Structures are given as structure tokens and as C-alpha cells.
């Protein structure tokens, strides 16, 4: 079974004044189709860099990115990204933002309208289709960003700490929505977060990175059929298996943080 996306031997070294800075040591990571993989690690471990390379927005110093077994090529709609800071186009309405990728791909007008309408309904944005981004709350803006990334039917969805800029309540609501979407529609997702709880709640597999320069330390599977799946995150958090997995991951990270 060829993985949907493969990160093979990817490392990144930056050239700064007076020398080089190694941000990432060679990493290997495979994401299977329909799998939700989250990368966690201490601050500065290079997980965002890894994501940017996976998205094709930065070139790796070594290694390559493969999609469906073939080199992924430049950044494009096969690997769309949801950014932490939303990145909505301020001069376009919600509907226009969502339609952007489809317009660029010159999809037929009628099909654009239909697919955008679907996404609006899916993300609960019908009421806001003609609003401008600055008129929306943070949670709404991020929903638009997710809709925009999904409407082009990417091979894999990349999410770079998408809930980091939201307040705790909005974050909880969106986590539950993403979890619901994933259970219904089985996207292939590579997700980055600081929050271990979020990682366990959403993922099929959690990848822990070491302190910078980062490398992949350990991968921890989260069973799809765990008994706490399908509940709200507050509820799920009280289950023993959830807490066990969370503790395991957290210990790994803590060891990295204090490591000299």
C-alpha cells in the first residue's frame, strides 16, 4: 500500500550570518490515505519547517516529498494548507475566498457554485457567504480557511497549528468539528500542534519530534476504535486510555525539553 504522502530523508539547514543552523535532521514520515497524523514536539523543534517543506513552500536541504509514490513537485492544490493565521484574502468575500482554488483551476462556473455551496453548508457558513474576512470572528475565519482548503479536494490536507490563534472555547468547538469531519469523510491529514490533548483527540497516529535540530523520536498509534472516540473532548479527556496515551506522549516531550 503506497502511502499517500511520504517525507523521505528530509532535512533543512539555514545559512545565517557567520555559519549554518541545522533546523531539521533527516526525517522519514509516511502518511497513509485516510490517516490523520499529528506532529508534536517542543518549541523550536522544526515541526513548522517540516510542514512548510511538506507543502512545497520551502525546499529541503536533503530528501524529497512524495505524493502517491511520485515526487510531489511545487506547492499546489494537491497539498493544501490551513495556516495558523488564517491567511484569508481580505479583498474577497467568504464565498470568493473558498472559490479561489477552483477559479485558479478554471473549473466551470456552475460547478464552482455548487461545490462552494456544499462547503459553506458543511462548515456552517451559509449565513456569511458575502461577508468580508475582517467582519468575521477568528473561529469563523478559520472555518473559511478550512473550507477553502477542502473544496479543491486535495490529496492531503496540511494544518499548521490551525487553532493556535483562537481562544480556548472556539478552539474546543473547532476541534470537535474537525474530529467529526474526519470520522465522516476520512481525509488524509498532516496536523501540527502544541497541544498534546488535541493531538490525541484528533489523530490516528502521533509523531513526537525531538528538540531542535528536530528529528522524529517516536510514533504512537491512537486506536481508531478507542472507546472515547466520538465524545466531546472534555468527556473524552476523562477516559483512562485517553489519559494514558496523553501521558505517554507528554513524557516524551518533557524529556526533550529538559534534555541538555
Amino acid at each position, binding site marked *: 500500500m503506497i502511502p499517500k504522502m511520504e517525507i523521505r530523508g528530509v532535512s533543512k539547514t539555514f545559512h545565517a550570518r557567520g555559519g549554518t543552523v541545522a533546523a531539521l535532521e533527516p526525517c522519514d514520515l509516511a502518511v497513509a490515505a485516510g490517516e490523520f497524523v499529528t506532529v508534536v514536539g517542543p518549541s523550536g523543534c522544526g515541526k513548522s519547517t517540516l510542514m512548510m517543506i511538506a507543502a512545497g513552500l520551502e525546499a529541503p536541504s536533503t530528501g524529497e516529498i512524495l505524493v502517491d509514490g511520485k515526487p510531489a513537485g*511545487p506547492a499546489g492544490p494537491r497539498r493544501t494548507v490551513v495556516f495558523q493565521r488564517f491567511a484569508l484574502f481580505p479583498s474577497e468575500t467568504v464565498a470568493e475566498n473558498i472559490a479561489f482554488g477552483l477559479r485558479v483551476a478554471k473549473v466551470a462556473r456552475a460547478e464552482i457554485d455548487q461545490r462552494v455551496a456544499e462547503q459553506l453548508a458543511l462548515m456552517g457558513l451559509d449565513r456569511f457567504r458575502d461577508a*468580508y474576512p*475582517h467582519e468575521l470572528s477568528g473561529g469563523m475565519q478559520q472555518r473559511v480557511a478550512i473550507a477553502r482548503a477542502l473544496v479543491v479536494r486535495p490529496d492531503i490536507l496540511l494544518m499548521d497549528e490551525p487553532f493556535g490563534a483562537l481562544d480556548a472555547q472556539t478552539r474546543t468547538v473547532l476541534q470537535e468539528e474537525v474530529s467529526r469531519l474526519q470520522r465522516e469523510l476520512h481525509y488524509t491529514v498532516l496536523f501540527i500542534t502544541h497541544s498534546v490533548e488535541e493531538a490525541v483527540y484528533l489523530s490516528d497516529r502521533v509523531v513526537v519530534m525531538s528538540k531542535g535540530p528536530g528529528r522524529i523520536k517516536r510514533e504512537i498509534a491512537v486506536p481508531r476504535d478507542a472507546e472515547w472516540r466520538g465524545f466531546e473532548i472534555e468527556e473524552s479527556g476523562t477516559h483512562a486510555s485517553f489519559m494514558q496515551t496523553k501521558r505517554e506522549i507528554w513524557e516524551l516531550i518533557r524529556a526533550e525539553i529538559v534534555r541538555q
Partner: protein
Amino acid sequence: MSGATALSGGRRDSGIAAARQPALYGAAAIATLLFAWWLATAVPGLVPSRVLPSPLDVVARFAALIADPFSGATLFGHALVSLQRWGIGVLVAIGLGVPLGIALAWLPPLRAVVTPAFELLRYIPPFAWVPIAVLWFGASTTTQAVIVFIAAFPACIINTQLAVSGIDPILARAARTLGAGSATTLARVVLPVAAPTIFTGLRIAFSNGWMALVGAELVVGKQGLGFLISQGQINDSAATILVGMTTIGVLGTLIDIVLQRAQRLALPWRTDSVRPAE
């Protein structure tokens, strides 16, 4: 209320009366100055009228200039000529400056090509080009328009470049991940977002052009508002000068107000893309 409390956003007086206060103070200040002016000129012998005419003299002169030609044209005639020259100069400056500014922002190697020449020429004040412009183009409208162009062009190009390179890079990245090529990203994402800032820069360029035109008309030409006030000086008529200066100032302000209106109508969106409403 102490200055500190006011600055920190402390207690504010509420009510309609308080909201009108700034306007009242301002109006009172201006009225006082006008009154003092009139008073100074009303006392016989205090100030010679050739140095400072009374406000009424100025108004009378204003009316006279609208009705009868002076040094070749009425007030409107001179104003129109000035506006024409200014219009030509700024249009060319925008036509060249905006595309060039966009190109410089979008294609970094181009900056390396253009910077040396640009930096060398930029610090020469537009007015310093007048002698050489007169030699090249004669004492004609072209010279004036060229000076306006020289005054407006740097602001156009620099502000456009800053506007385009100053937009959040994350927008361009987002566009790339959605499959947009370089040209599409520029046209569909970057330019619309940068447009309001570019426009603000253009307003600065327009204003620079207007200011420089006046100077050029002081030296060269047989018509125009600058010419009018220099004629006023030659004829020892301070009233004419004051009328001219006021007209120049008023026109300059009107132009900017019109442009602000236009900007708000045409480009209603805000460019701070990452600020959520809550």
C-alpha cells in the same frame, strides 16, 4: 483633566456638547486670528497696506481676480492652467511609477538593477531640475509637467513598492498552495490587497506634484497660479499674493479630499488580513 489621564484613555466627558467642543475651540481660534488681522490693518499707520492688506481688501481682490483678467487670465484661467499641467505630470508619474513599483516589489533582482540610479537621482529636489528642464524643454507647459512628474514619480514608485512588498507573505503562500501561479497570485491576491495602500501613496505623490508645480510656475511660464503670485510680488500687491496662496491651498486640499472619497468608494476592504473581529 490632566494630560496623562487624557492620553491614557481616562474619563471622557459624555454628551453632544462635549463632542462639539473641539470644533468650537478651533473655530474660536481661527475667528480670533482673523479678528486680530483685521484689527491690525484697521488701525491706521500700524501696518502699511502694501505689506499686509486688510482681510476685506483680500476678499475684494479675490472678487476682482475672478471677474477680470490679471497678467493674462482670470483666477479660474490661471487655476485651470495649473491643474492641467499638474494633471499631465501626475498621470505620467502614475503610469510609469505604479507598474515599475509593482515590478520592483515582485522581482527582487530588478531592484538591484534600478536602485543605484534611483538613489543617485532621488535626493535632487524637484525644483533643482528647473534650470535644466527649461534648457531642455523651453519655457512651456512641458517643463512644468516634467517638474510635476519628477516630484510625483519617486513617491509613486517607492510607495507602490512598499505597499506590494509589505503585504503579509502568508497570503502569497496560501495562494500558491491553492495552485495559483506567480502571475495569478500577483493579479488576484497581492494587488487587490495592496491597492488601498498604493492609493494612499498616490495621494502623497499627487500632493508632492502640486507643491512642486507652484514652485516651477514661480520661475517659468506666463500663466498659472504660481505665475500669478509672482506677478503679485512684482506688482507690490500682497492682496494678489494672498488670493493666489489661498487658492493654491484650497485646490490642493480639495484634490486630496476628492481622492480620499474615491478611495473609500472604490476600495472598501481593509488590508489587515489577520485581525479577527473579536
